[in-house]
């Protein structure tokens, strides 16, 4: 992690930090490509649960859940430039909120989602306040600490009555409502799909708005952003909050889909996985979240097939090779491809 020095006074080319997709010229044709890709993806997404077995549906659901979490992380890191190695903590808070509401109060699972979101927003916002003073490595460390500490907090004996301590909470899987002809796996898939879509659209709107520009301005040059009237501390904290909201909703969904949570479900490896997903998908490129989710969901399995004893090593190796092949993530690769494409169409 490097110290954040985007504000250096020396006109050196600043360290590249990811992708910024909006590009000139053939932008319209790119937009068309992207839109077509989006429609195809949507169609596949709707058809998938009817074409695959329950196990794959479950995996795809988890993939989308991770994607939502990564989307949240992307808002914070990719758009606002604040590192977080602790998003697993917000995922955990969301999951516990949902589980406790269902387990202790018998509240319907659908209600737990917005509540988890709101609670995580508040937690994220509050965490964002002290985090304001920290930059780069220091922030990364503080968030990492959060990731390490959170599972311990959920184990704490005074809360055991709520959290069931280390034993965790078992949740039952909801059936499809309104007599829809879907099995529980399919239903949860569509629920996640819909929420994911909503989350994505909102994130995209946000990034393209005044708020989004303010967030990016802070990322690129906090001092100048302040001088342009952006209330930097407020926006940074809000970015933390919104980011946590996304991740928290993902956590709540994850709890419902997995049907079980315990402190061990949310160790710092989860946070690390989310960061890996973010980078592989492309920092600052929102659709990348889906690819990041797929990566952290499926690649460990591939690694395991290649070698059981050395699955960790294989996974690590894949990660590194991935970074050589696409150092700026899939988003960066796509950007390069689109630029090349539009250049060719311009030359013609």
């Amino acid at each position, binding site marked *: *992690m*490097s*110290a954040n*020095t985007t*504000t*250096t*006074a*020396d006109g*050196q*080319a600043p*360290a*590249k*930090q*990811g992708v910024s997709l909006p590009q000139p010229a053939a932008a319209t044709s790119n937009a068309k490509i992207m839109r077509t890709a989006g429609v195809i993806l949507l169609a596949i997404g709707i058809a998938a649960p009817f074409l695959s077995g329950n196990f794959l549906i479950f995996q795809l659901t988890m993939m989308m859940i991770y994607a939502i979490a990564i989307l949240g992380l992307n808002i914070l*890191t990719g758009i606002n430039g604040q*590192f977080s190695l602790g998003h697993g903590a917000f995922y955990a808070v969301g999951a516990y909120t949902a589980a406790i509401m269902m387990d202790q109060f018998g509240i319907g699972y659908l209600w737990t989602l917005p509540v988890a979101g709101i609670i995580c927003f508040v937690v994220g916002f509050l965490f964002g306040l*002290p985090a304001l*003073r*920290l930059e780069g*490595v*220091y922030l*990364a*460390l*503080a968030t*990492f*600490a959060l990731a*390490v*500490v959170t599972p*311990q907090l959920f*184990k*704490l*004996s*005074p809360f055991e009555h709520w959290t069931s301590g280390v034993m965790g909470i078992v949740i039952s899987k909801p059936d499809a409502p309104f007599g829809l002809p879907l099995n529980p796996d399919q239903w949860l898939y569509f629920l996640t799909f819909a929420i994911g879509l909503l989350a994505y659209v909102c994130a995209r709107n946000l990034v393209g708005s005044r708020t989004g520009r303010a967030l990016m301005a802070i990322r690129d040059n906090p*001092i*100048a952003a302040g*001088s342009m009237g952006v209330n930097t501390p407020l926006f940074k904290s809000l970015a933390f909050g919104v980011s946590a909201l996304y991740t928290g909703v993902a956590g709540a969904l994850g709890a419902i889909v997995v049907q079980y949570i315990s402190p061990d479900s949310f160790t710092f490896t989860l946070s*690390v996985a989310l*960061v*890996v997903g*973010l*980078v*592989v998908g492309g*920092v600052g490129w929102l659709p990348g979240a889906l690819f990041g989710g797929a990566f952290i969901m499926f690649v460990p399995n591939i690694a395991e097939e290649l070698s059981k*004893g*050395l*699955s*960790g*090593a*294989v*996974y*690590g*190796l894949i*990660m*590194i090779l*991935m*970074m*050589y092949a696409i*150092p*700026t*993530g899939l988003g960066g690769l796509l950007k390069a491809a689109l630029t090349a494409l539009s250049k060719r169409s311009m030359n013609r």
Partner: protein
Amino acid sequence: MELLAQQLITGIATGGIYACMALAVVMIYQAIHHLNFAQGEMAMFSTFIAWQMLAWGVPYWLVIPLTVVVSFAGGVAIERLVIRPLGDAPVLSHIVVFIGLFAIINSLAGFIWDFTIKPFPSPFGEGSQFGGLISNHQIGMIAVTMTVLVMLFLFFQYTRVGLAMRAAAENPASARLVGIRVGWMIALGWGMAAAIGAVAGILIAPIVFLEPNMMLSILLYGFAGAVLGGLTSPTGAVFGGFMVGIIENLAGTYIPEIGGELKLPIALFLIVTVLVFKPTGLFGRTVVQRV
């Protein structure tokens, strides 16, 4: 009162472990302005190499220098083979590579040497002081840490290579413009960090026992110590390491009920609090940014 003294001493002894690791963390930070997440695993691997040599019957006094040299070379090799091809990829891509390295080294060590804990002999022999609160080994460890600290301080502050390394880490493009071989500085940084890590591993293993996951949490404490003291200051790192050890032990002992369960959270909470008031750590230099 007696318990307080005992916990203070135990805290210092444990803090010594963290200080040792924190030094390695600061070393690499000075050289590349990154936190290397694989650092702990590299240290662990070095220690296994030492262990293996001992198992093969290489005499102890030869094992330590050999391990340090091998680790140095290993660090340089990792930089050349793994990090270099990344070029100027964004910071986060580097982080992912560190995470990948972490996974590889950890998994490899488990594959080669298994996960059973292994005793590692202390270079300072058995025996202890202060009624067993601090072993001779821990005293030796603290002494070595202090020595390394002084050497590092002198290296960075008073040697030209040290200056070149700082310059290269801060602004590689400008460093090239004054003729600093940035690539080699970075490789040297990795080598030195790996060598210091090897020393740390050899010092830590007799206390926590050698196994592939031994550094998992120590690295976190090392980070915490380094950050508390200030990543730009070796002195700060060592001080921070001791502080973390002491704070943690006192919190665990004196905060009733949940103190024991919350040892780590409390320590980390205090650190974050310190950072909020002193964002670059207690001893860290504040680099003023102008517009």
